[in-house]
């Protein structure tokens, strides 16, 4: 015989205060759990969306980031003649030779921070088609002008259109704002590569990015680079994979810390559920005896308490997830260890995170409710009835 669900649900309501405290506890734990997953996913998403699968980026093999990568002119010219590079309508290779440097700018919240300045070639806007100009105009080639990413304009002082930024002994005018669809390019400043190199008195590029017709050509390129003595110091990589790798250290940090904390928290929440369920069993001893006397099986009793426990966890889980979903409107900016510069990202929710979170809550309820339910099922009818 099964115990009706309404009995379980009503008990849930009867002990309002204790139950709601447990629900709140589970909700908090689930909130943290979801927040950590969303944060890590947000960082990944930002950097993955920075790269396109159809682009290949060349960097120095040993370089851990774009700023420490150096490609000299001669090598660059060699690379630009590679037949794998797609050609535009004008017959020119779809490639950009980038120079990446870091400058310090004051943040609106106080203090200064590292910002990536990227010098790009004319084709850059063709191969990185997600970049759109949202305000003002594009910088003029051959002028000391810059466009800034939306995240820079929002977070840094003096980064509006018309403002001047001083570096490399010159004043640079900001003339426009670009939007990179929540990619890392949102946290960058772009200008003319030739102007930047000249200003910094440099001749080397940092990286070269080019469009290929078929992403499968990458493995061929890799072999070619490895075997060519002029190119074997350099390494081609899918642009998407390259930026994804830059997020690895940060995501890993968030994940290690997150998993550690989540384990700790979930043990705490399970203990909370256990305390509540033990009390529920103790308070309903006579009731359990009566139910058993009426003919309900031990298993039914156990299931009733387990379901009650899982219900508490599920409600808590849903509440926690609901609260966490608001985090999607929050964006954070932090130093990306991979690139040494500030990166803005948002908490992002995915179906997998939702499923994981709910599953996590149910498991907490199951584990926390198991021992108390077992005790309830084991009660002797006579003893239970007498305990009044």
């Amino acid at each position, binding site marked *: 015989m099964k115990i009706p669900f309404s009995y379980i649900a009503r008990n849930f309501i009867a002990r309002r*205060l*204790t139950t709601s*405290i*447990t629900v*709140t*506890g589970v909700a*908090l*734990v689930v*909130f*943290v759990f979801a*927040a950590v997953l969303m*944060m890590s996913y947000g960082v990944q998403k930002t950097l993955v969306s920075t790269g396109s699968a159809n682009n290949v980026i060349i960097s*120095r093999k*040993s*370089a*851990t980031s774009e700023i*420490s*990568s*150096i490609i000299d002119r001669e090598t660059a010219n060699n690379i630009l003649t590679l037949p794998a590079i797609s050609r535009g309508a004008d017959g020119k290779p779809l490639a950009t030779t980038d120079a990446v*440097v*870091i*400058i*310090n700018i004051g*943040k609106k*919240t106080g*203090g*200064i*921070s*590292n910002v990536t300045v990227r010098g790009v070639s004319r084709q850059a806007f063709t191969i990185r088609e997600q970049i759109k100009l949202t305000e003002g105009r594009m910088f003029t080639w051959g002028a000391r002008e810059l466009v800034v990413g939306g995240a820079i304009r929002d977070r840094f002082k003096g980064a509006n259109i018309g403002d001047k930024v001083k*570096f490399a*002994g010159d004043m640079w005018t900001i003339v426009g704002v670009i939007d990179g669809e929540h990619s890392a390019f949102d946290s960058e400043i772009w200008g003319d590569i030739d102007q930047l190199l000249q200003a910094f*008195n440099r001749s080397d590029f940092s990286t070269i990015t080019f469009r290929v017709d078929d992403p499968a050509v990458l493995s061929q390129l890799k072999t070619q680079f490895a075997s060519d003595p002029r190119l074997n*110091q350099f390494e081609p990589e899918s642009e998407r994979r390259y930026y994804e790798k830059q997020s690895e*250290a940060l995501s*890993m*940090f*968030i994940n*290690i*810390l997150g998993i*550690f*904390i989540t384990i*700790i*928290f979930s*043990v*705490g*929440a399970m*203990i*909370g559920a*256990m*305390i*509540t369920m*033990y*009390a529920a069993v103790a*308070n309903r001893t006579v009731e359990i005896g009566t139910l058993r006397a009426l003919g309900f099986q031990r298993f039914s009793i156990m299931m009733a308490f387990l379901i009650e426990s899982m219900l508490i966890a599920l409600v808590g889980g849903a509440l926690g997830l609901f609260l966490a979903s608001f985090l999607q409107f929050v964006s*954070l*900016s*932090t*130093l990306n260890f991979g690139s*040494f510069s*500030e990166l803005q990202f948002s908490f992002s929710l995915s179906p997998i995170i939702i499923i994981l979170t709910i599953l996590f809550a149910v498991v907490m309820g199951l584990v926390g409710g198991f021992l108390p339910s077992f005790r309830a099922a084991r009660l002797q009818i006579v003893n239970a009835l007498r305990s009044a």
Partner: protein
Amino acid sequence: MKILKLIFKNALRHKLRAFLTIVGIAIAVMAFGLLQTVVTAWNAGVEAAAADRLITRQAVSFIFPLPYAYKDQISKLPEVKNVTFFNWFGGVYIDKNQFFARMACDPETLFDVYPEFVVTPAEREAFLKERNSCVIGADLAKMYKLKVGDIMELEGDIYPGQWQFVVRAIYQPRDKTVDATGMYFHWQYLDERIRQVSPERAGNIGWFAVQIKDARQSAAVSERIDALFQNSRAETKTETERAFQQGFVASSGAIITSLNVMSFVIIGIIMLVLGNTMIMSARERTREYAVLKTLGFTGGHLSAFVAGESLIISFLGAGLGLAIVYPVVAMFSILVPKGWFPVFNLAPSTVILAASSAILVGVLASIIPLRRALKTRIVDGLRFIG
């Protein structure tokens, strides 16, 4: 004394529940300690900063070099005691996941400006004499099982090529706040090789560390240094070492804020677990409280009973939590990749904070049950059944 005994007996009346609650609190206190330790580790550079040291770097950002020639000009200022400099080398040791600092330094002045790196005179001598030698921190030596005489092979990125260095000295940190995972080698050696491949990059260093005679004059000296190079091609920005380190920490502000927010959530969870237990205990004891009131015990007495019970449980939980936080912190520092947190210790302030939070929570958790106990009229309390 007798009252205390009653409180104690009450706290442990439900053995299983008391045990679960204590374990719950212990786990939360441990998590709190761990999170705060991570925050402390992040701030380690700021904590270790010496008051009498200034950092002079390129005004645009730290990745741009400064001419080596600036050293003499800075040294000539009367307020300056010593000047040393560093140049970030980067590169790859073993693989790309080894995160310790690899830097070129000025071997003559390094240990004068950084007295917290302790080496024997013999080792210092050996390090000075050999052009391609390096000095490494004691923790780094332990991490990679390196000893004096071993070769460290690096693959350069900013400075392309294969580089080999002989370990000639291992420095000991003066105290627990000092980073003992650094690797420093002769800048001269780096410069000579660079001069051969790309002469335009030679003669540059990363940043100067300036030791001044009077720490109180740091602001004035900083201004004087920057004034020396104003309107030159490489303008400088000088600030105290502390401010310099704070700049790095500030960039990761969002993560630190999240960690702090989580710490508070943890305290909230402790409160819920303990509050839940206290509410249940007080509810079951409704009749007993009525009897005590009948006997003449006042609201003050009842407050002492309930809050005392709550405090005993939170104390036991906090004590257990603090006892396990040490091994957990040790385990965590093994789990994170090597070199992420050069300095990873449980700070005394964290222990104090955790303990005082537990006391606060103990008091707060007894508020609801206490209010109920006080509000219940004796006649209703006596009639209360389970």
